[in-house]
């Protein structure tokens, strides 16, 4: 079996002695035209995987920064047809692995099978659906599998070993470990030192999953990466990138700091 491209991007980064870097930006942020320029910059600056947010009106797993950005994109008319159409027209352009992150309902209305086909043919490798726990994932995986599209498992600090194993059993791509009991961006789980709870949770996730484990939610500055060395394989930055752009920065500058 060939290695999944998301798995490979992260292992390649590890082989170079660093963590995989996974920036997140809501599709169409800060505006529809500039968004693609930002994605180009993220790719050129060496993002291993780029996570693109599919905006939803009721994003329960997100904190205020991501929610506000997503609603702004919705107001600007961003939808799945636009995201997938634009990605299809750029197919083959990115070195980074591509992941779409969002909530089930827009995907459901687009049509699970149609979404799987269009996402896959637009060059998307994996999907994160924040409101789909293992129990509800069956029909989604059934639609994604034939297209080689991967549903990325999301686990967290309160995920029991039994549930961790459910996700690990046929987890592909990478596993996303949520570092706080909270929403995106709100609380940073830690500053420079890593609390014992996160350390223990990560160790448990690393033991359960054979695929790489990425840590996300609440990463604010590069010093945090050092504390993660040896404990995870990759790190996701969402709110931090949005804040950086809101403050007048661009993605290239953002990546330089983190790399």
């Amino acid at each position, binding site marked *: 079996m060939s290695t999944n491209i998301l798995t490979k991007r992260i292992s390649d980064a590890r082989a170079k002695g660093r963590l995989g870097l996974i920036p997140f930006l809501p599709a169409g942020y800060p505006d529809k035209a500039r968004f693609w320029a930002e994605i180009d910059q993220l790719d050129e600056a060496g993002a291993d995987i780029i996570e693109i947010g599919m905006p939803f009106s*009721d994003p329960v*797993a997100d904190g205020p920064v991501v929610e506000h950005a997503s609603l702004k994109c919705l107001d600007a008319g961003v*939808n799945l047809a636009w995201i997938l159409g634009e990605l299809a027209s750029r197919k083959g352009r990115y070195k980074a692995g591509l992941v779409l992150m969002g909530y089930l309902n*827009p*995907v*459901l209305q687009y049509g699970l099978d149609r979404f799987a086909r269009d996402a896959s043919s637009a060059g998307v490798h994996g999907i994160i659906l924040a409101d789909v*726990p293992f*129990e509800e994932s069956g029909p989604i995986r059934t639609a994604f599998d034939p297209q080689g599209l991967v549903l990325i498992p999301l686990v967290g600090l309160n995920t029991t070993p039994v549930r961790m194993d459910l996700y690990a059993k046929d987890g592909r791509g990478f596993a996303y470990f949520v570092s706080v009991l909270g*929403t995106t961006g709100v609380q940073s789980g830690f500053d420079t030192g890593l609390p014992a709870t996160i350390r223990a949770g990560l160790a448990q996730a690393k033991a359960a999953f054979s695929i790489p484990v990425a840590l996300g939610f609440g990463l604010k500055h590069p010093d945090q990466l050092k504390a993660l060395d040896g404990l995870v394989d990759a790190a996701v930055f969402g709110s931090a990138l949005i804040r950086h752009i809101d403050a007048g920065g661009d993605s290239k500058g953002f990546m330089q700091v983190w790399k």
Partner: protein
Amino acid sequence: MKKGYFGAFGGQFVPELLMPPLLELEEAMERILPSKEFQDELASELRHFVGRPTALTFCPNLSRDLGVKLWLKREDLAHGGAHKVNNTIGQALLTKKLGKTKLLAETGAGQHGVATALAAARFGLQCVIYMGALDVERQSLNVRRMKLFGAEVVPVESGTKTLKDAINAALRAWIAEQETTHYCFGTAAGPHPFPLLVRELQAVISREARIQMLDQAGKLPDYVVACVGGGSNAIGAFHEFVPDASVKLIGVEAAGSGKPGDWHSAPLSLAGSPGVLHGMHTQLIQTPEGQILPSHSIAPGLDYPGVGPEHAAYQASGRAQYVSVTDDVALDAFVTLSRNEGIMPALESSHALGWVLKNAKDMQPGSDVVVCLSGRGDKDLDIVNDYLAGKA
């Protein structure tokens, strides 16, 4: 049937971080709720604190005018002024058994917030209520009531700043505080096990009403009619009658102004389609692209773009019918019941009543019609006065 589903509807569409507290709650519901100790305590609370059983009142004057026998199941007489307390007392009791110390809840109009806050006060629990910032402005009386009961009221500034956003905020807060906190969900909706739990706690409405009808009318009703926001008073009013095939079950949604293009709150009877929101697969008011649309009703407690999954299933199976009436019909019913029977219904309940006033002429004469009077109307006086002033 898949666990947590009613036909094709229901489920647990939540972030993994919420699965542990939902599984804990499900386990508690299955283990603690049926126990004799819990049921005895609940029965005692319902009797001595809530004031149950609530009356089943025959309406002689309107019955004469309408040609059908109109009965009201008087949830307006329950403590707090609405059926909401049946649910909050049960969940507060369960929270104590779980060893948790705090309740959090969403509220739209503030009725569920008030019912949660008074239950928290009674059981010595802390209480935080999430309420859309717009609703905080519109329902200031209920905000003051909640605060008097010792609750903290958090205005939610995100999204449409109404009930759906308050639910989002409460779910987010629950992720962070799950160890010490129970989310006291306010209606028979949301992720499993809430639709089941809330229905079990509200079923007391139809348990009593069925016995009362047999006692007072000597027969089962021909119709049971209830308003549907999230669907808790309706599912409570329907549940015991579901096996009685002769009893027609009618859920009345809020059609809003009725003007083309205006928002409404009727995903079952007007323009809904299946989708996923707030942890459940159900009928929703949404765009073709799956974005949830704002809702509207003059009755703040009906102002919600979704509906509990068991109602979606009853509609699909045909066991219950779902209809809607406009703001005007509800307002007229509010005034009509007040003048003719000396009972002031909540604007929510006025939708159920309004449907009966409008449709009694099409019923078999002499039919027995039970309306679930889910709450009392004092909270709505400002809205109704504005309407009457506009009409004069």
